[in-house]
C-alpha cells in the first residue's frame, strides 16, 4: 500500500478509484490491486476501517472484550489491503464524479485533501460509501446531548470515550443491543434502553425464521440480546419519544402501553437501523429502487454490483444493508467485475475465482431478511406525527410544514418540496431529512415512498470552497468555455 499524504502525490489517473475505506472498499481495492490494476482508495476518515471497523488499527481501547471479537476481525481486512499495491488517500474527500469528455467511458473525479482540490481520472469506479443511521426525528432531537447510537460507538472506538453521565439508548435494531453491550462493558452508566420494536413485526418476520435459524446472526444476536436484557433496564414496546431540555438535553419522555414515563439523562442515543448512503450514487446518476423490506432506497446493481451507469459499481452496505462481513465479500466481487471490464481478467476466470466468494456471501446474507422485517421501524418514527418535530436539521424545517405543503400546495415530490421549504438544501444535502420528507409526502398524499421518489442530488456531494475550485488547474478549453 502506498500512502498518499498530499493531493500532489495522486497520479493523473487510475484504472480503478474506490471511494470509502470500510470493509467493502478495503477488500475491493486489495483484490483489484492483486489482479494487477492501478488502484486508488480514497477515504475521508483519518484511518481505515469504515464505521464498523472504525479505527481498528489506531484505537486506544486496550481491553479487547469491550468491542468484541467481531470488531477485531477488521484488522485482517486492513492488513491484507496494506500488503497490496493500492494507493491509499486518507482524509481525502471525493466530492464529484462525471464523464471524462476527453476519454469516453472514463470518469473525472473531484477530490480534496488538506484544503486543496484536484481532478483525476478513473477508468472504473467502485463506490463503497456504506451506510448511515436511518434518520429518527423526534421532538428535541436537535438538542445538544442527543446523538446517534453510532456516534457513541465511533467515539468509543476511535477516541476511547464514552458518555459521561446518565445515558439512555432508544430505538430498534440489532446494533442497539451491540452498542448497549459495548457501552456497558466500557463503564457507561446506562439508565435505560427504550426499545421501539413494534410487537406486530414478529408475526411479519415469522416466515423468514427458517433461514434465520441457519444463519450466523442467530447465535451471535441471541447472546447479545440476552446479555443486554439481563444486565440493563429494558423498556419494550415504546411508541413515542420526546427529548426535552433548555439549550441541552435534560430528560427523555416516552410512552409505553398508554402510560408515560420520564427519565432524567445527560445523553440520549438514538438508533433506528441503518440505510444505504445514497448521496454519491444518486449524484452519479445511478438508478435507485425503493426496497420495501429494508424500507430504504437502494441503488440498482447487477450480479457484479455494477450500477446502471457503465463503469460505476457499488459495493458493501451502500448497495443494500448486509453487514460488515458481507460488505467485504461484495467488495471482492465488485473488484472482479471491474477487472473483467478492464480486460484484465476473462469472464470465465472472473466467474471461477468469484464462485467461492459468492457461496460465502450467500451464507452471510442468510437470515438478513428476518432482521429487516423484525426491526422495520414503526410508522410514527418514520413519519413523525407531531407537527413541531424538526425533520430537516440544517434548515430547521418541521414535519408540520412538510405536511402542510403537501396538503395545501399539492407538492408531490421531495424535489419540489425542496424548492418550497429549503429542506435538503443545508450542508448535509438531504442526508438527514431525505427519507423523512419522502415518508411525510407519501403519508399525506396516500401514496408510497416508491411512488414519491427521492431527492435528485448533484455534485459536489460534499462542500468544496470557492478557493479550492478556483485553484484547480484549468485547461484552455475549460477557460474558453466560460470566457466569452
Amino acid at each position, binding site marked *: 500500500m502506498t500512502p498518499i499524504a498530499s493531493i500532489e502525490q495522486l497520479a493523473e489517473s487510475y484504472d480503478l478509484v474506490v471511494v470509502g475505506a470500510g470493509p467493502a472498499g478495503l477488500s475491493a481495492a486489495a483484490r483489484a490491486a492483486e489482479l494487477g490494476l492501478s488502484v486508488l482508495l480514497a477515504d*475521508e476518515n483519518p484511518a481505515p476501517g469504515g464505521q464498523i471497523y472504525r479505527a481498528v488499527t489506531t484505537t486506544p481501547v486496550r481491553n479487547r472484550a469491550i468491542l468484541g471479537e467481531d470488531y477485531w476481525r477488521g484488522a485482517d481486512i486492513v492488513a491484507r489491503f496494506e500488503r497490496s499495491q493500492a494507493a491509499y488517500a486518507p482524509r481525502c474527500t471525493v466530492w464529484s464524479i462525471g464523464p471524462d469528455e476527453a476519454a469516453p467511458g472514463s470518469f473525472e473525479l473531484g477530490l480534496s485533501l488538506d*484544503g486543496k482540490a484536484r481532478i483525476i481520472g478513473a477508468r472504473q469506479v467502485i463506490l463503497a460509501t456504506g451506510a*448511515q443511521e436511518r434518520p429518527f426525528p423526534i421532538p428535541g432531537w436537535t438538542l445538544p*446531548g442527543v*446523538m446517534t447510537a453510532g456516534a457513541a460507538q465511533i467515539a468509543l472506538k476511535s*477516541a476511547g470515550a464514552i458518555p*459521561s453521565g446518565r445515558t439512555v439508548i432508544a430505538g430498534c435494531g440489532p446494533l442497539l443491543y451491540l452498542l448497549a453491550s459495548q457501552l456497558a462493558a466500557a463503564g457507561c452508566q446506562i439508565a435505560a434502553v427504550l426499545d421501539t420494536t413494534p410487537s406486530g413485526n414478529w408475526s411479519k418476520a415469522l416466515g423468514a425464521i427458517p433461514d434465520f435459524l441457519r444463519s450466523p446472526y442467530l447465535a451471535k444476536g441471541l447472546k447479545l440480546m440476552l446479555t443486554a436484557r439481563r444486565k440493563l433496564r429494558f423498556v419494550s414496546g415504546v411508541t413515542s419519544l420526546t427529548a426535552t431540555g433548555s439549550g441541552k438535553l435534560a430528560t427523555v419522555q416516552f410512552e409505553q402501553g398508554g402510560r408515560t414515563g420520564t427519565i432524567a439523562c*445527560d445523553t440520549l442515543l438514538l438508533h433506528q437501523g441503518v440505510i444505504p*448512503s445514497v448521496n454519491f450514487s444518486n449524484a452519479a446518476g445511478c438508478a435507485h429502487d425503493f426496497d420495501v423490506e429494508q424500507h430504504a432506497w437502494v441503488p440498482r446493481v447487477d450480479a457484479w454490483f455494477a450500477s446502471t451507469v457503465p463503469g460505476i459499481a457499488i459495493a458493501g452496505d451502500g448497495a443494500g444493508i448486509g453487514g460488515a462481513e458481507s460488505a467485504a465479500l461484495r467488495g471482492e466481487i465488485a473488484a472482479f467485475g471491474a477487472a473483467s471490464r478492464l480486460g484484465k481478467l476473462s469472464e470465465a476466470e472472473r466467474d471461477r475465482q468469484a464462485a467461492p466468494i459468492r457461496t460465502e456471501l450467500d451464507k452471510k446474507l442468510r437470515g438478513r431478511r428476518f432482521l429487516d422485517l423484525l426491526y422495520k421501524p414503526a410508522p410514527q418514527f418514520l413519519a413523525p406525527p407531531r407537527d413541531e418535530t424538526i425533520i430537516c436539521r440544517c434548515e430547521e424545517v418541521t414535519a408540520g410544514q412538510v405536511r402542510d405543503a403537501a396538503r395545501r400546495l399539492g407538492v408531490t415530490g421531495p424535489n419540489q418540496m425542496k424548492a418550497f421549504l429549503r429542506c435538503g438544501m443545508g450542508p448535509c444535502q438531504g442526508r438527514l431529512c431525505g427519507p423523512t420528507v419522502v415518508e411525510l409526502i407519501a403519508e399525506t398524499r396516500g401514496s408510497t415512498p416508491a411512488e414519491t421518489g427521492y431527492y435528485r442530488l448533484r455534485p459536489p456531494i460534499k462542500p468544496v470552497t470557492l478557493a479550492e475550485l478556483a485553484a484547480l488547474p484549468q485547461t484552455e478549453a475549460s477557460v474558453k468555455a466560460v470566457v466569452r
Partner: protein
Amino acid sequence: MFRPIADLAAGGELSFTFDGRPMRARAGDTVAAALLVNGITACRETPVSDTPRAPYCLMGVCFDCLVVIDGIGNRQGCLVPLAEGMRIETQHGRRHLAEVAE
C-alpha cells in the same frame, strides 16, 4: 459530555483552544471528539434560529459539528484530526463574507 474509559492506551496530548480557552486532548482524536471530552456542550449555532448544536453523528453525515478551525469556517469537526495549537471556534449562524476576507 464524554469521558475517557478506564483502560485506555497511553498516548500523547495536544494543546488547542476553543473560543480562546486552552484545552488538551489525546493525540489521535478528531476535533469533534476532542470537544466532547472537554465537556463542550455546543459547538455551533444554526443559521436559521441561532440555536446551539453539538456533534450528532460523528461520521460526516449530519454537519452539526461544523466549527471554525484556524479561521476557516464550515469545517466538519468529526473528520479533522486534532493538531497541536489548533484554534477552534464556535461557528455562529451563517458564515459571513467578512470572515473570508480576514
